[in-house]
Every structure is written in structure tokens, then in C-alpha cells.
């Protein structure tokens, strides 16, 4: 029993240490391995954490001989470069090697795949340190794509089960459904109906429910040590915001477009001035949705990980334990943020749908 308890903090420390050593590996800083953590290493690790990766790395460590060991598994790389190229990410050897596929050579640079000319091919950078090498179209199953697949399976399983529960239990939820039903009802009664209205809300329920649970669960997964943060990828939030934008635009009725292009109730010159502003507004709204979700989650991760890094930087018991406490409190705050951002995304989406289908002229 005592052993078990003692193992937990040790495991945690080991894990945190492993994160730090991983950061070292990625950028190949040739500093002498003094066993101390530097500020730069923490920064790099955070940078790395926020990026997608081509293999599913659980953790890495350094052997006594200074050799990097990575625990995890490779994922398939799918490229479109004059034909479909599928190969395992293990060929990159964690970014250390050039992968050769059908006579083409590919190299990982800052977690991105570039085409290089030869097996010894180097990345050529311009004066702004941007690589000028060609990048093939990349549809790889990266760590984040694995996460999307997992979410797909998990949500399908969860909510299918919940739906089946109603059949088996005579219109009453059972099991997990008891927990999920109040949330589903909350989204219906407090988000969809007030914002969209009794008449139209049903059409948008599927999207609102899916987006809420998707963002929420993904955010929660992002807080786990596996570190798969979908929502700190601008591509993911852009995709979600774009879907909201497309739904809003396609469900916009006459009244909605009239309010954009020919605002009723104001003088004609104002109408002309307002039209481009309102039109721009339709783009800004989903853009803000995208940035808000992305920035909140990313910022949360950066701050949380910086404070975890401070545990190692402040090498005295007071500073480190205070940082640990702060990190703990912040992690709890992040739990709240995870739900809050999902809620905000859903509410605002519902609000935009509501504007699009609003019928009465209230001016």
C-alpha cells in the first residue's frame, strides 16, 4: 500500500522529466547533459506540445548513455505528391532520418513534412528562416487525426448507447444517459430554444449537441497527459466555425439578408454605410468563434505548462511546491474553461442561427 502511494508522485515526476527531455530531442540542442532543465528547454517543450505529430508518442526518456528512447507507436503518413504515397511515420525515425518513398525523399522539419532532393537532403531556409522546400499535400493520420477518429468512435458509442437506453428502460435514461440527459436538455431548453425559437430550433439540435459534446470532450482530453489537443489546432476550430458560418448563411431568410444589405429603419446613407459593415460582420462572427476557442485552449495550455516548467526551473522547495500548487489550481480552472468554451461556442452558434431565422421585424 505504501509503495503504491509513493509510486504515484515518482511516476508523475518521471513523466514530467520525460516531457522535458523530449523537447530537447526535437531540436537537437547540443548542450551538455547536465541533468538541469533550462528555460529554453521548457519553452521548446511547450512549443512542441502545441504541435501536431506524425507518431503517437506516449513519452520519451534518455538512457544513461544519453540515447533517446521514445515509447509510442508510429502512424500512417498519407501524402499526395504526384500520386498517393502511404508509408509509416517510423521511417522518419522521429525526425532524424529522411524517408524514401517511390524515389521521392521526405524530411520532417518543425513537425512538417518537406520534400528534399536526396537522402542527405537538407532543408533550405530563406532569410526569414522559412523553408523554401516544396511541401506535398499532407493527409496523414497524425496524432490529432487519431484523436478525431477516437472522438468519432467514442461519441458514436456513447450517444448510441444512451439512445438505446431509452428503448430498454421505457423512455427513461439509464447508465451514462442519466448524466448526459440533463446536459442535452440544457442545450435544448437554455441554448437552442431561447436563441433560435420554438419554431426552428429542431433543425439545429443535432449540430449544437454534437459540437458541444465534441468540443467539451476534446478539451477534456487535451488536459490529460496524453496531450492530444484538437482544439488548439486552428484547422479544427476553423472547420467548426466554418460549419457554423455555412449553416447560418444557408438558413438565412429574407429578413436576415435585408438586415445585412438594406438595414430597415435607418436613413439611406446609413444603409449604404452599414451594408459593408454588416456583411463583414457575418465573417467576423465565425472568425471570432474560431479564434476564441483556439486562443483560450492554447493560452490555457501554455500557461499551465509554463507553470509546470517552473517547478523544474525554480530549484528550491518553496518555489517548486508553490508552482506545483499553482499548476494544480490552474488545471482545475482549465477543467472549467474546457466546459465553458464548449458552452460559448454552442451558445454563439445558436445565436447566429437564431439571427438567421428570425422572422419578426423588431425595428
Amino acid at each position: 500500500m505504501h509503495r503504491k502511494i509513493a509510486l504515484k508522485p515518482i511516476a508523475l515526476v518521471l513523466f514530467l522529466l520525460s516531457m522535458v527531455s523530449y523537447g530537447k530531442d526535437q531540436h537537437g540542442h547540443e548542450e551538455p547533459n547536465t541533468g538541469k532543465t533550462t528555460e529554453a528547454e521548457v519553452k521548446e517543450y511547450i512549443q512542441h506540445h502545441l504541435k501536431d505529430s506524425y507518431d503517437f508518442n506516449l513519452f520519451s526518456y534518455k538512457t544513461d548513455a544519453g540515447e533517446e528512447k521514445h515509447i509510442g507507436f508510429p502512424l500512417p503518413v498519407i501524402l499526395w505528391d504526384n500520386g498517393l504515397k502511404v508509408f509509416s511515420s517510423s521511417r522518419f525515425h522521429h525526425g532524424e532520418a529522411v524517408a524514401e518513398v517511390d524515389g521521392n525523399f521526405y524530411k520532417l522539419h518543425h513537425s512538417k513534412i518537406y520534400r528534399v532532393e536526396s537522402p542527405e537532403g537538407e532543408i533550405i531556409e530563406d532569410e526569414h528562416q522559412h523553408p523554401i522546400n516544396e511541401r506535398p499535400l499532407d493527409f496523414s493520420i497524425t496524432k490529432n487525426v487519431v484523436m478525431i477518429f477516437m472522438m468519432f468512435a467514442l461519441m458514436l458509442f456513447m450517444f448510441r448507447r444512451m439512445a438505446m437506453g431509452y428503448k430498454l428502460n421505457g423512455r427513461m435514461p439509464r447508465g451514462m444517459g442519466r448524466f448526459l440527459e440533463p446536459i442535452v436538455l440544457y442545450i435544448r431548453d437554455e441554448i437552442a430554444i431561447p436563441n433560435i425559437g420554438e419554431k426552428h430550433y429542431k433543425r439545429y439540435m443535432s449540430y449544437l449537441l454534437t459540437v458541444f459534446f465534441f468540443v467539451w470532450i476534446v478539451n477534456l482530453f487535451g488536459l490529460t497527459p496524453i496531450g492530444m489537443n484538437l482544439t488548439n489546432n486552428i484547422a479544427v476550430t476553423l472547420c467548426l466555425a466554418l460549419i457554423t458560418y455555412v449553416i447560418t448563411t444557408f438558413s438565412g431568410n429574407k429578413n436576415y439578408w435585408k438586415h445585412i444589405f438594406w438595414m430597415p429603419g435607418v436613413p439611406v446613407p446609413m444603409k449604404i454605410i452599414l451594408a459593408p459593415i454588416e456583411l463583414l460582420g457575418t465573417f467576423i462572427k465565425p472568425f471570432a468563434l474560431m479564434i476564441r476557442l483556439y486562443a483560450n485552449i492554447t493560452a490555457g495550455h501554455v500557461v499551465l505548462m509554463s507553470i509546470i516548467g517552473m517547478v523544474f526551473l525554480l530549484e528550491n522547495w518553496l518555489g517548486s511546491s508553490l508552482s506545483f500548487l499553482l499548476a494544480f489550481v490552474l488545471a482545475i480552472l482549465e477543467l472549467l474553461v474546457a466546459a465553458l468554451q464548449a458552452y460559448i461556442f454552442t451558445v454563439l452558434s445558436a445565436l447566429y442561427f437564431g439571427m438567421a431565422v428570425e422572422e419578426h421585424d423588431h425595428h
Partner: protein
Amino acid sequence: MEKLFEHFSLGLFVWQAVLFIALVLLLKKFAWKPILDSVNSREEGIKEALDAAENAKLEMENLQADNQKLLKEARAEREAMLKDARDMKNKMIEDAKEEAKEASAKLIAQAQATIETEKKAAIADLKAQVASLSIEIAEKVVRDELSNKDKQVKLVESMLGEATLN
């Protein structure tokens, strides 16, 4: 902003778009629709049950009110019947009294009439007896004093007149 663009990954975007839209559609068919339908039907059921209970309560109240009314009516009827019976009893007693009075009055009148008749008969009888007695006396007087008959009759008559007055 530049960093954002750099960070953007088309592959991830495409996967997210495809899988997310598929997820929305699949969940709509297999999860959200059955869940929301179940919840709706349950809510409808609850509402109907509540309405039914409310109606039952109202009906119950109506029934109770009816019962109360019936009870009141029955009570009133009983009251009326009792009153009728009492009235009838009083009337009968009254009638009986009246009849008895009439009968007794009649009896009294008859008795008086009989007494009167008897009295008259008695007086007549007495008169006859007195007359015969007087005649006897007169005979005796006549036997004794035939000569002075007229004078004697006159005397007898005057004596008789006195006797009648008694």
C-alpha cells in the same frame, strides 16, 4: 497571424471536416433523434398524466359538490316530510277535538231536550195527579157538602191555582 497560418494544417482540416460532418449526420440518425424523441414523448406523457390528474381532481370535486347537493336536497325533503306529518297530526288532533266538541254539545243538547221533555211530562203528570187528587178531594167535599157545591168548586180552583204556582 503569420504563425496562425503556419500552424494551419490542411490535412487536419480535411479530416476534421469529413469526420465531424459524418459524426453529426450519424449521431443525428442514431442518437439525437431517438434521444430527443424519447425525451419529448416522455415529457408529453408527463404533461398528459398531469392533465389527467388535474381533470380527475376536478371531476372528483364536481362529484363531491353533486353529493353535497343531493344530501342537502334529501335533508330538505326529509324536513318537508316531517313538517307535513306534523301538520297532518295537528290537523287530525284539531279535527278530532272539533268533532268531540260537536258530539258532546249535541249530547248535551239532547240531554237538555230530554230533561225538558221529562220535566214537562213530570209536570203534566203531576198536574194530572194533582187534578185527580183534587177531584178526589172534591168528591169527598161533594159527598160531604153537596149543597154548597159551587162555593166549594170555587174554593178548590183557587187552591189549585196556588198549587200550580208552586
